[in-house]
């Protein structure tokens, strides 16, 4: 403790608290009341501080909003950990189930114009799918036909065709093609295994940007009866 303090008596506060130079309580309250009131009228001259405070407030508020929305996982009551992987309920079930009912709807929308809702086709123009050996057996055959289409001379169920089937499947998703193939392979007396979306994905990848098949090429890769 330095000497300046020692002789001054302020180390030993007496009655009346801070001593004669201090503000009296009444004066203290009055002075501050006036400051608070006067400042509300802008006539008192221009100070940068209030504007600075407003800006500061805006900046903090903006940050707070941003931080809250980014770090609250949609304000969900069941999100506890920022580092946990996001559960993806909207993308659908993780396990694919081939569904003939969905397949039927998709068939009616995408194939029935040519092959007919009955699957019997139109004699001379569109070959039948009912009891067709092309539909049964190796699933890759029908997947390939749907994906890139087929054109050329061919004999199906004893009748000759020379038509042109476009790449209908190019615009469909793997799962949709799997549903259609599953439906076609189980309808109208057909009885072949269902088709999974991963098989479609595999074939699509292998084909790349290939053009239409000729019936000969298909039969070389996937002979009938298998």
């Amino acid at each position: 403790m330095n000497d300046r303090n020692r002789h001054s008596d302020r180390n030993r506060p007496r009655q009346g608290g801070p001593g004669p130079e201090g503000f009296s309580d009444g004066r203290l309250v009055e002075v501050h009341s006036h400051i608070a009131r006067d400042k509300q009228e802008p006539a008192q001259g221009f100070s940068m501080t209030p504007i600075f405070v407003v800006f500061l407030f805006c900046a903090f508020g903006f940050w707070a909003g941003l931080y809250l929305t980014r770090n609250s996982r949609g304000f969900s009551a069941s999100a506890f950990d920022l580092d946990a992987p996001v559960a993806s309920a909207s993308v659908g079930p993780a396990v694919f189930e081939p569904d003939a009912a969905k397949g039927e709807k998709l068939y009616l929308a995408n194939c029935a114009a040519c092959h007919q809702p009955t699957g019997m086709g139109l004699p001379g123009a569109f070959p039948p799918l009912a009891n067709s050996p092309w539909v049964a057996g190796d699933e890759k055959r029908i997947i390939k036909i749907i994906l890139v289409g087929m054109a050329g001379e061919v004999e199906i169920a004893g009748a000759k065709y020379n038509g042109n089937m476009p790449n209908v499947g190019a615009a469909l998703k793997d799962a949709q093609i799997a549903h259609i193939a599953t439906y076609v392979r189980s309808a109208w007396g057909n009885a072949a295994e269902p088709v999974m979306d991963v098989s479609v994905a595999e074939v699509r990848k292998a084909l790349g940007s290939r053009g239409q098949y000729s019936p000969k090429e298909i039969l070389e890769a996937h002979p009938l009866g298998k």
Partner: protein
Amino acid sequence: MSRIDAPLRVPFTLLFGSAALWLTLASVFSLLAKVQLLPSGLGACEWFAHGRLEAAARNAFVYGWAGNALFALNLWLLSQLGRFEIRNGWMAAIGGLFWNLALTWCTVSVIVHGPGAYALLDFPAGAGPVLAVSFALAGLWPVVAYAKRPTGHNFAAQWFVVGASVAFLLAFVLAQVTVVWAPASGVVQAVAHSWYVRSVELLWLGGSALGFGYYFVSKVLARPLHAYYLASVAFWTYFLFAGWTAPAALIGSPVPLWVQSAGVVGCVMMLVPVLLIGLNLLGALSKEGGWSRAWNSTSLRFISLGLTSILASIVLAAWSSDRAVNAALRFTSFSEGQGVLLLYAGVTMCVFGASYAALPRVSGGRWPSAAAIHTHFWASLLGAVGTVVSAFAQVGGRSPDWAFVAAGSSALLLLGHLAFASNAFATLIGGGESPQSHPAHD
């Protein structure tokens, strides 16, 4: 003795006297708890387990010392500022009496049966209502004094003290209901508890201490505060955001993410009132040799130190709420150090400062021993620094060397508090025997 001070004398003496006793008791508990952490320890007696001593010290310190001291000082301060003459002082005295009885029961129960799961709420369920009613009797006088002030004038110190008193009662009742009486689900309990603790620390204790700051800085320096027109913004933002800092204590625990994030936002938003309060108070202190005048006034020396610590601890809380920093500091002694910075180096220093001015006025006497004041100042300053530094130094892991520093600091604090308490008793009791006339300053 003035018309305002005279009727305060009985309740003030009772409340502040109990405060000084609790402070001494809390220091003893805390010293024993620190000694238990030394390699030699105190042995395995159940009553002296570190956890029990620490919980008892915390309760005695917060409710016993700070609580009683704030009853007395808040009543005194707002009576001065509002020209309020208390008529039913006996109500405050009765409230204080029951508050202290309930608290004694709580302390015995913590030592004998062990502390509960929730710090600061770990007393027998029956004690809660007694404490609440006692608080209403002893702690709400600032509201009355403010409401009855004769002129329309008002001052920031009044807002802070009134806000602090109301905030505590509200937080206490709500916490009692959700945690003790009708326990809500586990998550809600944890959130309610953290919110209660922060309300006690920042609103009741911190708010009152800031009120003292607004009063004494202006009064002792005899100048208006810097940029005072911002004080109302400071007050509202402080009281608005303080409660929201609570969930930051729960970062990383299984409470919903948005609650945790709200805690982080609350901690950072507290920088706004800190900046404004700093502008008001530290701004006034920094003008025209304010700091050296503060050093020369016993009251303001304690208070300027306390204010700086409070503001620093809130800045630290904002920094440590950052998720990465928090992950590193979460289960370390960092929060302990920060708590001491806020509650001891901050709030308690402000309370000491205020009592050096208030006691002589109420009792009409004077502080008998200058040596005791010096001892008190240096022992509590060094003790506080030692405690905070040893807590921060052990963030990486407990070490026996720092445990010695912590125990030594606790011993220093006890020494300082003994000096303060004996000096305060002499002032409170001795004052009446040699009444001196003194000029009314108001």
